[in-house]
């Protein structure tokens, strides 16, 4: 029983950090631009597929290709912002929802058309980063440990960028009051592009880290994005710290709920927790303002 508890707690915690990183991108884009990106899970899928193709075509381990994929996805994010999101910023909420939702359908189907619906696993060339570790009498996968450490690092970098750099302060200012930010001479359009690119890089990085141990297929983003929405709502839409704590919470609730109550209802428990928070703190989640 004790071993089971440790195992459940550890794997929940490890997965939780990845959930945090996935949620960060979603929360950031919403907090700054007021756009709910329904294609978030599909960008995760894109990150995973990029990791897969780099591993197959260039024999690059995802842990190496991540340094190429993060900037690449930043560019993709900026491109999607300029080509699509920018045009709907002043539109109605419904047109924003339909656009990002349409983008998600388009991306998933495009992936299916290009890469077939088959399930794949990325090829690992860094064999030292595979296998498992004994911790507290249980075994945890090294890829999972690296994925969660990697998520913490990327999260910390993004946090630093947002909180302590000039650009980051401009992002914060835009998030608080875009009109005010415009008045003091911040180029809002650039800030939006950077924010969107940053959000996509974060979720893409999470995808690459997941690709070290999770299977890849065109609809892989669906379930993760559902969890991401619950995480963001739990932590508070727009709150960076909230995403971090809520991701870990959800990872642990999922794992312990599955272990103690029943695996069949573990997602029910996750979404129930989220609903309780929504009822108690409807507008803000745990950390929002």
């Amino acid at each position, binding site marked *: *029983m004790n*071993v*089971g508890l440790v*195992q*459940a707690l550890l*794997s*929940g915690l490890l*997965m939780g950090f990845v959930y945090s990183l996935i949620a960060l991108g979603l929360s950031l884009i919403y907090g700054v631009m007021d756009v709910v990106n329904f294609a978030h899970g599909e960008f995760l899928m894109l990150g995973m597929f990029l990791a897969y193709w780099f591993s197959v075509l260039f024999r690059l381990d995802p842990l190496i290709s991540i340094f190429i994929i993060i900037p690449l996805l930043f560019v993709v994010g900026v491109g999607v912002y300029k080509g699509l999101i920018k045009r709907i910023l002043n539109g109605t909420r419904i047109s924003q929802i339909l656009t990002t939702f349409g983008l998600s359908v388009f991306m998933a189907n495009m992936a*299916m058309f290009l890469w*077939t*619906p*088959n*399930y*794949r*696993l990325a090829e690992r060339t860094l064999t030292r980063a595979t296998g*498992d570790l004994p911790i507290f009498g*249980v*075994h*945890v*996968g090294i890829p*999972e440990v690296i994925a969660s450490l990697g998520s913490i690092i990327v999260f910390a970098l993004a946090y630093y960028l947002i909180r302590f750099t000039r650009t980051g302060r401009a992002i914060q200012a835009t998030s608080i009051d875009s009109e005010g930010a415009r008045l003091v001479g911040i180029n809002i359009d650039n800030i939006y592009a950077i924010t969107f690119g940053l959000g996509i890089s974060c979720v893409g990085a999470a995808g690459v880290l997941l690709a070290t*141990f*999770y*299977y890849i*297929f*065109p*609809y892989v983003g*669906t*379930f*993760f994005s559902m*969890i991401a929405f619950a995480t963001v709502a739990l932590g508070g839409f727009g709150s960076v710290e909230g995403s971090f704590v809520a991701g870990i919470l959800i*990872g642990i609730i*999922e*794992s*312990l*709920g*599955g*272990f103690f109550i*029943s*695996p*069949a209802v*573990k*997602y029910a428990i996750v979404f129930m927790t989220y609903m309780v928070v929504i009822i108690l703190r409807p507008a803000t989640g745990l950390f929002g303002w």
Partner: protein
Amino acid sequence: MRKDERGFIVKRGFILLCVLALVLSLGGTVLADNVIKIGAIYPFTGPMAGTAQMLKNGVLMAVDIINNKHDFDFLFADTEGIPSLNGAKIEVIFADSAGDPKTGMSEAERLITSEGVVALVGCYQSSVTKTASQAAERYGIPFVNGDSSSPQLTERNFKWFFRSDPHDGLYVRQQFEHLVELEKQTGESLRRIGLVYENTETGSNVAKATEELAKEFGFELVEKIAYTTGATNLSSESTRLMASKPDVVMMGAYISDQILFAKTFKTMRFAPKVWHNTGAPGEPDFIDSLKGDANYLFLRQGFCADQVENKPVLVEVLQRFRDKFGHEMMADAVRSFHAPIVLADAINRAGSTEPEAIRQALLETDIPGKYCLSPWEGIKFDPETHQNIYGKYIICQIQEETFYTVFPSAFATRGPVFPFPAWEDR
């Protein structure tokens, strides 16, 4: 261009079109007289699109054998078309269900009412087959299914529904027979069963059958875990399973979750003596993605490529399939292949395309085992349920990243690797 000149061209074009339409429609009716239309519904769009293509090619392979001359021993191989109907050709009209039961049903209705098909085949997903066959039942059109495995389909005692493939209930029985045989061969007890299944219709039905048959065979169910398909993390499921210390893990999982379970088991170093799967990892991408970690899993197959040793006709059909479609004929194509053959055989014996005549002929179907690609004694339908009474699965084990038949012993090409080796020793 002047106005009257333009008018002249338009007029001439119109006449030309009329003539063309007339010729085409005449040609159409001439052809239609000697064509028998069959409808085939598969999930051509959505996540099962790849599988649907395989199923479609299976149907087309069968139709190719029926419609054209071939130089090997098979039903309809030495004739063109249906002999008793002056060589009428079979034409298959494919429709897309998108994996949705409602769409499947409306497509079945459309095929029957506006396309005028005389029979239906399909639809892969049991839930879709269920609704589409209801439409066929209502219109009184024969429906031959070769590719759905829910036991319920033939428990409805429909008048017009026939199934050539075996079903999940039969398979679970074979699984227990296999365990009993393994116990005999090795002298080890395999009585503690851990059951894991995905919590929708397919998985739940498998779980129900497993529970009932465990009792009948005297096995003990030490853990029973329902999980959500597509879960992002299966560690709590695996932890619970491991804690119950089962000898055998029986899993009704889809390929995606099966991949994640294999990875999780490996990380936790969980190796039950026997790991059995009822679900879909017979698909090639299972081994492609997991490589060596896929080894030693037992799974059901309707067909396995190593059966060519037992069945000469397979060599011929597999080769023609490869030539025609440029890829291997996998289990799903073999499943869908049987239905058009069964129908053509019935239509030929009926000497008519009247639904009732075909239905009567279907009831008298008796196709010998040598004309089945699957390892069956033949195809013959139960008069009540219309389930093929010879329908059986084989149990394969993945060894050296290839499927090998290990049970029943009459079809086995290799002995089983037992017990499932510890992860660190492989």
